[in-house]
């Protein structure tokens, strides 16, 4: 395996972008998934939503960047993947749209029905992509029917197979656990206690399901490289560690290692793919690889320079945001007032 070429570098960079996306948006999806379970009243829900308030939009840009980078570095991969996985991506888009406006609009009008509607928008908008991203990635790894022109020839139901569904449940659990660990870190009072308890409950289930998914991936893999095995083992060990830390209520370390689990799991998928980016289940010869799907050397060089200059800066100021908003959020500030109360004349009933 030759790792010293631009195509491979970009394959690694795209894996890094997806790791960033799944780790960061993963926990904000998770908070959304937990909204109906942990947010027992409006104050609790607002407490939860405000823990991810400053972050979710920046987290979502990791997805846009992964998409843009795939377009720029591997146009064939981008074209086949996005046109082939049309309906799942369409559903993900609907979910992300509804979810994004829900955060912004929820507090802008004072009515219980209004808030309830947007609460459900947040839940559905979080659960649906949490599952579908796992389904999509599992299908990429498993291989889908692709013809000689690089076009996807399967249908929608091709994508709903056992392995992919297990992948979907795995990401749903991983993200929800991330959300619980994050809430444990970022809240005070009852919410923190409940979040820690939820993480303790979810962690072993997540570990078991993730282990099942890892084993299925390894069992299906055509040839098992040592790197794939290392990543798989890493994901399994870290996942157990997260469960132990969650059991002990050490949510800070648990959350950090959860990032490790996601990194190792995504790496396992990417390493097992390489040098393919989208294996064809029709014929190996039709598989898209990092070499036949990539852009020209010039474009890759330009993009490498841009990425190497900008990515560290992005990481710096995003980390800084997390530092600014590191304070735990209590529920008291949400108990009496909704944002609407702070606008004069908005709430004549004085509720």
């Amino acid at each position, binding site marked *: 395996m030759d790792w010293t070429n631009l195509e491979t570098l970009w394959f690694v960079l795209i894996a890094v972008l997806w790791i960033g996306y799944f780790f960061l948006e993963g926990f904000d999806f998770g908070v959304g998934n937990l909204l109906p379970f942990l947010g027992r009243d409006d104050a609790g829900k607002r407490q939860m939503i405000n823990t991810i308030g400053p972050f979710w939009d920046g987290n979502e840009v990791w997805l846009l960047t992964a998409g843009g980078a795939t377009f720029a570095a591997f*146009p064939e991969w981008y074209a086949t993947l996005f046109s082939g996985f049309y309906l799942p991506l369409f559903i993900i888009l609907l979910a992300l749209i509804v979810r994004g406006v829900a955060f912004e609009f929820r507090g802008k009008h004072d009515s219980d029905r209004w808030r309830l509607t947007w609460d459900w928008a947040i839940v559905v908008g979080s659960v649906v992509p949490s599952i579908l991203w796992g389904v999509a990635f599992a299908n990429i790894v498993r291989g889908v029917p692709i013809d000689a022109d690089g076009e996807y020839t399967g249908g929608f139901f091709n994508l709903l197979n056992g392995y992919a569904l297990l992948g979907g449940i795995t990401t749903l659990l991983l993200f929800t656990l991330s959300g619980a660990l994050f809430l444990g870190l970022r809240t005070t009072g009852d919410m923190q206690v409940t979040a820690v308890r939820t993480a303790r409950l979810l962690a072993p289930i997540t570990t078991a399901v993730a282990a099942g998914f890892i084993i299925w991936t390894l069992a299906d893999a055509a040839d098992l490289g040592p790197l794939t095995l290392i990543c798989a083992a890493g994901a399994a060990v870290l996942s157990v560690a997260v469960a132990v830390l969650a059991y002990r209520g050490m949510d800070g370390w648990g959350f950090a290692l959860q990032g490790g689990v996601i990194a190792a799991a995504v790496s396992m998928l990417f390493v097992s793919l390489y040098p393919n980016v989208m294996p064809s289940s029709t014929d190996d010869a039709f598989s898209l690889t990092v070499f036949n799907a990539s852009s020209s050397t010039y474009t890759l060089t330009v993009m490498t320079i841009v990425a190497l200059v900008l990515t560290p800066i992005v990481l710096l100021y995003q980390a800084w945001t997390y530092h600014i908003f590191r304070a735990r959020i209590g529920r008291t500030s949400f108990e009496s007032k909704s944002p609407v109360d702070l606008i004069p004349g908005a709430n004549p009933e004085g509720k």
Partner: protein
Amino acid sequence: MEALELARWQFGITTTYHFLFVPVSIGLALTVACMQTAWHRTKDPKYLRMTRFWGKLMLISFAVGVVTGIVQEFQFGMNWSGYSRFVGDVFGAPLAMEALAAFFVESTFIGIWIFGWGRIRPSLHLASIWAAALAATLSAYFILAANSWMQNPVGFELNEETGRAEMTSIWAILTNETTLYAFPHTIFAAISTAGAILIGVSALLILRRKDVEVFRPSLKIGLVVSLVGVLATMVVGDLMGKQLVKVQPMKMAAAEALYETEEPAPFSLLAVAPFEKQPERSSFDLAIPGLLSFLAKGDFSSEVKGINQLQAEAEAEYGPGNYRPIIGITYWTFRLMIGAGILMFLLAAIGIYLWWRNKLERSTWFLYAAIGGIALPFIANSMGWIFTEMGRQPWIVQGLLLTSQAESTSVGAGTVATSLIGFTLLYGVLGIIAGWLAYRFIHRGAEDAPETAGPAAEADEPDPKLKLSY
């Protein structure tokens, strides 16, 4: 309908919709950043109230703009995989740069701005709105560079082996002449949009005698912003037109329904023709002699090529086919864009005259007109883009790739119809909700300034009040 046609409708609807919000967000972000700077400098609570009022309005627009933007990036691959394969090497780079250089800054710092009131130093908080506003402006640069390449492909070569366009110079792409005109044209249009909203909303609240101490100065700021913005948009637009004649002569001829090459060429005021039947001349054309020659080339007597000659030239170069866009659409969108722009200019100019004569608040007719004027930038912005994109047809990349070659062959009409209906319904509902929220919010007027010296005083509280937050 065929999948291709449905995909075009979807692109048209989602893009036009997205661009209703983008100029509002960019224009208001820049304006709000200026207002907050004024507050930071003077500590006058009036500016703080302005910042928060217009800032919240901006956020409503921002929310819809951001979420509908994701669709934009995805649908190139979803519906236009033929296009994506052909141009990815060139077109993907500015898109990825837009995400890395602009979207990250924009989304992160708008979050800091929303949630940072009272948590961070006021100067840092001020810097965060500037960072978000400038990043939004920068994002426009990258996406316009990508679009300009479709209008005027530069900095590439065709790879004979793969049949694809490959980038040879990123510098040429980022300094494409079309981009250098399209970027200021778009940004000034966004500033004019903010101006028209400032004028119209302030007029509404002044008519209702609500928080006049905030909306009187807001109206005046709006008038200045609008006048400068519209004038600059027009000047750049004129230069852009001259460049258009060079790189996309068919689009310009189609904008004028100029069928025959003429020297000098007249500017059409009202042309009537059965455009859908691809006629070879207008049935009726009221025109100002020589004006098109002047607009296109800078003197009143020069030659401007007509549709018929350009069609013949295109057939000679690319083979048989119809290389004319739909003339009725290009002709009317171009006129509606310019017409709305002229009305925006008049509104701002009359407002400034009334202000100078000290009659601004008493001229209720003007204030009512200003409320109606809110619609103008939305008309101008949408029509401008529909003209730009429809005028390039049948090409998706001018002279290189036809729209008919660009679709996703693996995606059937039923699938595209599903997403077309889904997006259209969802966007419709969102538009109604966002409009209703904005309407209600506007009617409440500006909140009072915080009793303390400003948001900084909130910093000491363990649980700062989340005023702009969720």
